[in-house]
């Protein structure tokens, strides 16, 4: 072959290489998400369904390893106009069966205690307290919109996940000084969340979401473990059954319905 052909070939080859390099970098860039986008994805993934009805087993594990098991049924309905509606009902053990908790907003919560046959309104301004003896706070249970309260940045990206650090926005009322999330690129469900103490800044609680499955098209962690690192107390939540988008009516989230037994 003569020299010019060789030169041309070399030129084309380098062009192809160059182009593919650009192409790769470009696509690479277009794949990478900003922290806000990741958090957005997390928020939407976790609130994708319009409503849900789930049965869970709640295990409270003491420091000494002793366990208490409760069955709960939880109804959820997205409220586009404000706070989401939730209704949590205890199914077992027998002495708390029927205790139900309806949350329409922070100021409007209702507690039904079958032992007294009465519904009591609860207005709570304390969101960082433990939810009924668990390691979840009222906030941990209710809050699924990280974007509203936190400013996030990406700490690390691996082929499988993003590691984010989220710090509370200046005026956000949150119970932590920062949180760290490990977000799966496949499901956009955080597989692990670290919560840091609001004052000391040290690690306080760790949430681990596992057995993430796609149910009715929605990614769902079937097992959630919240561990308090400080007092070594642990709450395990196992979702035994869950149905999405069942078209729950607002009637379900009424005081009248609160008294109904399952």
């Amino acid at each position, binding site marked *: 072959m003569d020299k010019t052909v060789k030169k041309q070939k070399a030129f084309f080859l380098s062009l192809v290489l160059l182009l593919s390099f650009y192409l790769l970098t470009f696509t690479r860039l277009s794949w990478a998400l900003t922290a806000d986008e990741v958090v957005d994805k997390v928020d939407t993934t976790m609130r994708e369904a319009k409503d849900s009805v789930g049965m869970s087993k709640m295990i409270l594990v*003491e420091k*000494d390893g*002793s366990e*208490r098991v409760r069955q709960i049924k939880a109804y959820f309905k997205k409220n586009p106009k404000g706070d989401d509606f939730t209704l949590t009902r*205890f199914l077992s*053990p*027998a*002495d*708390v069966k029927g*205790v139900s908790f309806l949350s329409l907003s922070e100021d409007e919560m*209702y*507690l039904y*205690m*079958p*032992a*007294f*046959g*009465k*519904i*009591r*309104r*609860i*207005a*709570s*301004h*304390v969101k960082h*307290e*433990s*939810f*009924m*003896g*668990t390691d979840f706070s009222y906030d941990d249970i209710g809050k699924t919109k990280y974007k509203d309260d936190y400013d996030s940045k990406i700490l690390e990206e691996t082929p499988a996940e993003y590691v984010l650090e989220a710090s509370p926005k200046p005026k956000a009322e949150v119970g932590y000084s920062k949180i760290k999330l490990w977000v799966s690129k496949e499901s956009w469900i955080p597989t692990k969340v670290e919560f840091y103490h609001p*004052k*000391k800044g*040290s690690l306080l609680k760790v949430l681990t979401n596992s057995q993430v499955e796609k149910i009715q098209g929605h990614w769902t962690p079937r097992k959630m473990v919240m561990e308090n690192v*400080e*007092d070594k107390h642990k709450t395990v939540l196992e979702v035994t059954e869950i149905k999405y988008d069942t078209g729950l009516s607002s009637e379900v989230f*009424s*005081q*009248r319905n609160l*008294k109904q037994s399952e």
Partner: protein
Amino acid sequence: MRKFTLEKFANWVIRFRYWIILATVLITVASGYSARKLTINSDLTAFLPRHDPVAELFKEVDKTFQGADLCVIALETGGIFDYATLAEIQEITDAIEKIPGIASVISLTNIIDIRKIEDGIEVGKLIDPDNIPRDPQVLSRLKEYTLSKDMYSGVIISRDGKSTLILARILVDADEVVIAGQIEDAIGKITSRPQSLIKKPYYAGFPFQMRYIDKIIKTDFLGLTPITIFAVMFVLFLSFRTLRGIFLPILTVLFATVWTLGLIHALGREMNMLSSVIPVLLIACGSAYGIHVVNRYYNEVKTSEDKIPGLIQMAKQITVPVFLAALTTQIGFGTFVYASMPPVQETGLFIAAGIGFAFLIAVTFIPASLAVLKVRTAPVKKPGESRMATLVYNFFARFSSFPVKYRWPIIVICIIIALVSISGLPRLTREVNFVEYFKPDSPVRVAENFTREAFGGSQPLLVDVRGDILNPFVLKEMRRMSQYLDTITYVCNPQSVADLIMEANYQLNGRYSIPDTAEGVSNLFLFLEGNEFVDLLVKRGNQEALIQTTLSTYNTKQQLFSVAELQKYFKDHTVGKTKVVDLERLDPATREKVMVNQLDMIGENIVNLVKATAKKQGNPEKMEGSSSLSPKVREILASGTNQPFAGLDQPQKERLSVSLREYLVSPQSEIEIKDGKFIDSMVVAAIGTISNGASDPSRVESALIPLFKAKKIKTSPETISSLTRSLSNRIQEKLNAEEIDLLGQQIIALLPAQFKTDHNFAKYLQGYLWEIHDRRVALPEKFPLGSAPVESEISALFQETGGPVMFNKLYPELVNNMMQSIFLALFLVLILMIIQFKSFQGGLIAMAPISLTVLTNFGIMSYFGVPVDDTTMMVSSIGIGIGIDYTIHFTSRFREELEKTQGNISRALEQTFETTGRAILINAISVTMGFIVLVFSSIVPTQRFGWLLALLMVISSVGSLTLLPALLLSTKMKFIKK
């Protein structure tokens, strides 16, 4: 045979002198290395007896409820309810929360507050930390509200609204002493600013106590030891005026001290409040051996030629008396081997070991060193050369005839002293309260005093409850005991999980009582779980709980009185063992019997409530005389349950209608009905079913069904029965509430005026009255029920514990331990003396000075109000051990001199006084100087211990020089001539 051995020993010491010096130094270096790593145990529970059920329970409860981790900080201000003050409290709360080893902080500015609102409750912070009120009106309302709540008033805020508590819990694996220091620093930084409104922060609770103890152990240990060394060196300087005379005895005790401290660490023990005196005691007591050896050396060795034979002679003569002296001192300290408090036991044994070391070093290292050192020709050769020696010589020359001349007066005076001391014994007091160990101006005492004055109490008296805590009848039992505790004079603020459940019941259902069903309790508890206060009061998966109270006194007697009152309750009641019956399943006769018992119990609780309230109002005496209250209350209770139902009057019917209508139009109602007339007809029908003061759902149902049919309302039977249940419940509750209101008014009418305005009293009283309507009631285990069905049997273990209970246990033990150790010491020393003199009579005479010393000690303690505590209890036995040395040295020399003078008593006495008398005096002065240093200790019992022991040394040495020769002369000393 013995002489031969001693001679061999002396030769051996001289032959291997270099090796002995080297070995001594090496052992000291090794021990010093080990001692460097000694740690301090500042935990007061270490003082509690081992393997003692009362102490074990105390320690267990302390561990379960993490009492050792709770910091209590009291802030004194000019008035809490002021923006700047609250802001400062908030700043302090924040600062503590930021400290890494802190688990949680409860303060006025972060405490959760539950308020009743219409149809429910409002949960929030008592004070919003982000929005502290500035408006004086808002602040004054906040003050009124906070002080009106029993949950806060006298608990987290003083009743005068001027002081507040901050409770901080330290993480289990954090170092309490370090964290306590960080808290003090953090708060100090805030309160030391010029604009601070906190008058003074006070630090109470275990971690701060431990921190203080840690500090004083270090200061005592590091501060008193050098002073003792200097004091003893000073005495040695005055006595011998030679370098070897000063340094050989002092090195002996220093080496022995280092060996002992090394041993303590090697055996894995720690220093504590008591053992911090080990160096001082060892230096003071142990210096005697060196003094006697050196004194003898100067007696025997005058010139270089004398050196080796003199040293051998010295060893032959001095080893046995020094050995005996050391042995008796070891006995004195060793008798604490049976003491119930571990630190007493350990300190005694370690000092005994140290004395052994001092002896060993004195009889090896000192002769070895002297053998190496050149003989100086200019030491105090003969008594009479130095001024001091002249004085001593003249004194003894004159004094030696004194016991001969005045032997009978001496004996009589001693007998009088003994009798006076004995007659003082009944006045002897005891002190077992650890808080009394600190100086009155110490931070621990000051904080204790302040919290006691501002919050009513500081030292916890507790009842530990084990069993199914959430069982309603265990809770009711806790409530009952709490109510009783509240009537005891010095007991303040009893609190338990029962109070929290009752408060939740009050907030949610309007009654301050424990529900009579497990479901009721569990429903309420679900709401409380995770609450920090609950966490302080219930542990082990709800299988263990505490009834917490504090005592408003730390006078030991008053504390013991409180414990005795509590124990009386345990004796009079079958606490924790009950059987539960369902009244509706009993035949009428049994039911009546059970009801009588139930009303008795309610009556007892109400009377106790009245007493406790009167105590809180500040005039308990007003209620004292009212023994008639109990039957009157009982009568009112009976009238409430026995009276036939008179029917409803119009206003009553009206109130019922309003209540039912309210329900039917609410969103809670099972069926949504908009027709007002129909609602009215339902209300009339439902009220019409009331019969004999009771409403029954089935009767309501049968009255309502026709109405629904007529109106053609289609609804499920379940909904109807749910609705009728709701209505029936509402009727019944309203009827009961009205009855209870009436009974409450009747009871309040019996009481002084201030009860009428006491809202808390009314709330608690109604809570008890609601129990009249309990369907399930508890009965004593032995209540005769015949064949009536028992629903369940309940067994829970209630045990009293806490500091005062521990003191109650230690109180008698202290004296037992002391007597045991004194008699053991006397007995062992007597045997030794009998062996030494080969005569029983001789043994007894040798014991006379020391017995007199012991009696005088008690005389002084009785007349000067020095209590027996865990330190002063050791004084007598130690006094015996050390004091007998003077007798041993004296008699041993006296026999020797008697032999030399061939039975010339006055010559022998003179010689003894001049030689050993001098050594005894130096010895006694040096030991006394050592002990007296302890009055500079930061620990009160150590101070007493120091001056008592110093005094005992003076008495026993004087006794040996007066009473002993007087007795020897009067008994003709047959045994001594043997």
